[in-house]
């Protein structure tokens, strides 16, 4: 009997397996100041392959972190590894990365196709390859009809798509997208979200920043929250919420006769507050949602409130973020 497996793992499978273990980004104690303004302050984070959302309010340090990741900003403190390598002046690494900055960065006088082709050629692609790949990338961002128009004639959303196209055109392993959904209409936003998922399915890792939190929900469960240059939390929305067990969770109840029900629920110790939203709605804050819901189950038949809806606000990323930065 041979002990060898029927199918020896291919080199690619071995690589992928190894790649899964190795984080895409490892940052240790990153610090960066702009004069007296803090960009990053002792940021330590490890980001695995796949799609990761980088969330924080304006000025939180998202763009600073991303510029450090693509090697355009040198941290004054700490260490950073991207794809296992130092990102500064590492030309080989840059070939494996795509970057979509927040800044406009487009030449108005060039067509979208010329612009993406130009950047591909700078990356080292042959003229013919660059032409084909620029076309493919622009098709992927749904600019096939407009790719031969000058960028100067484009709307904000179309310009955003060109920026995304140039970041993905050379099929990088790791794509850094700084607020890529800003300025896009809902249809385009959906198309881009689909594109990001496709890219991840094809093996690319993506770091996507946003200050509009719900943009990232559904796209990834893995969130890195930064605020004032520091890591606030990391994990799935639920995991982050679980970390905040000491923080009350919000439950919104809407009913025809909500007042008696609210009075009955408010008497328990786990209820921190009850706020009337209107005649039919009340918002509770409870430290023990399980007990609260069990009690509600008992009270509903007794008070017959005509329950219309029950919502746990805290499942929403926005609420988690509000809790964290408040």
């Amino acid at each position: 009997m041979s002990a060898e497996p029927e199918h020896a793992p291919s080199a690619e499978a071995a690589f992928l397996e190894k790649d899964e273990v190795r984080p895409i980004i490892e940052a240790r104690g990153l610090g960066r100041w702009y004069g007296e303004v803090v960009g990053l302050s002792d940021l330590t984070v490890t980001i695995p392959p796949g799609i990761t959302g980088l969330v924080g309010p304006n000025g939180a340090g998202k763009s600073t972190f991303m510029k450090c990741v693509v090697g355009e900003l040198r941290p004054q403190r700490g260490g950073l590894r991207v794809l296992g390598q130092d990102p500064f002046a590492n030309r080989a690494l840059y070939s494996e990365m795509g970057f979509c900055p927040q800044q406009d960065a487009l030449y108005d006088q060039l067509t979208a196709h010329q612009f993406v082709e130009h950047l591909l050629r700078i990356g080292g692609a042959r003229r013919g390859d660059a032409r084909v790949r620029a076309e493919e990338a622009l098709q992927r961002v749904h600019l096939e009809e407009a790719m031969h128009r000058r960028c100067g004639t484009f709307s904000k959303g179309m310009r955003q798509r060109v920026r995304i196209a140039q970041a993905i055109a050379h099929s990088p392993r790791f794509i850094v997208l700084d607020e890529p959904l800003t300025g896009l209409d809902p249809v385009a936003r959906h198309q881009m979200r689909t594109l990001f998922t496709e890219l991840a399915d094809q093996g690319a890792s993506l770091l996507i920043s946003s200050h509009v939190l719900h943009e990232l929900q559904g796209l990834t469960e893995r969130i890195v929250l930064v605020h004032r240059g520091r890591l606030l939390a990391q994990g799935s929305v639920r995991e982050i919420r679980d970390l905040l067990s000491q923080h009350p969770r919000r439950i919104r109840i809407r009913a025809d006769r909500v007042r008696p029900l609210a009075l009955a629920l408010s008497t328990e110790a786990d209820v921190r507050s009850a706020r009337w939203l209107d005649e039919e709605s009340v918002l509770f804050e409870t430290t023990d949602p399980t007990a609260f819901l069990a009690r509600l189950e008992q009270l509903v038949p007794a008070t017959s409130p005509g329950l219309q809806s029950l919502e746990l606000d805290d499942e929403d990323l926005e609420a988690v973020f509000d809790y964290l930065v408040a």
Partner: protein
Amino acid sequence: MKASTHTEVYRPFEGQLLARPMRPAVLAWSGIRLGFRKKLPAFLLFTPPTVNALAYAVMVYLRYSMAEQVGSEGGFQAIQAQSALKELLGDVARNVAQFAEMSAFFALLAMTWFGAGMIADDRRIGANLLYFSRPVTRITYIAGKWLGVAFFGVVTLLAPAVLILLTATLASPDWSFLREEGAVIPQTFTYAAAWIAVVSTLVLGLSSLVQRRSVALVLSFGSVMVLHGLAEGAAEIFELPQLRALSLFNDFSALAAGLFGHRDLNPEHDVLLLGLVAWTLVPALLLWRQVRKMEVVG
């Protein structure tokens, strides 16, 4: 239809990247392409040096063809006529030197107009973020932009000079131009190359300081013209001819005198040449420092 089938069109990259891609050339080409997008400035800036070059080329052609015609008649009168023609049209070396000095101004106009936005615009729109997140080094970036500006100098100064030299070579009987005045060819190339190099560096250095093309344009052209005026004025007022070295035109005039030898060397020749070095080094250092900041903010 296309939108729904885009995933079928897409394929992961399987081509090979060039081992030694000509990145500066690609960067330069995009700068040149952007420059030629507007036709009117190109027309206005390239017409004067072209007309100037054609006029000088005709003059050189006439000098040889008429001299040959007159000379073929023989006799004392023919020799006299030949000398008169030479006196009237000048020797080719002098023509080329005159042309080069005159066209240098047109080259300055074209190079500042097309080059002023090369780095300023990149800074304004943030294009440097795209370049430096790719395998582009500081040297590659500077070389690409520099070649882009230099191209406009080549078109307005060197190429027309080559046209005149070519006319002289082909029109001269028995290649007499090459045999007797051939030295003017390397002299012309040296002069044009120096002008193009200095002005390209100056324009890019000043372009890297600001984020608006218009400001860079005013800075580049203004610095040359204002310093020329100041240098002349200060040299007269303080009776210090060395101050003329502050003017780029004076410095190049000294270079031309040294190279072509068509007029006496200025007594302040060495100081003027030092001025030329300063005109090159100061913008070069500025350019290096600014692009370094654009590449990685340390």
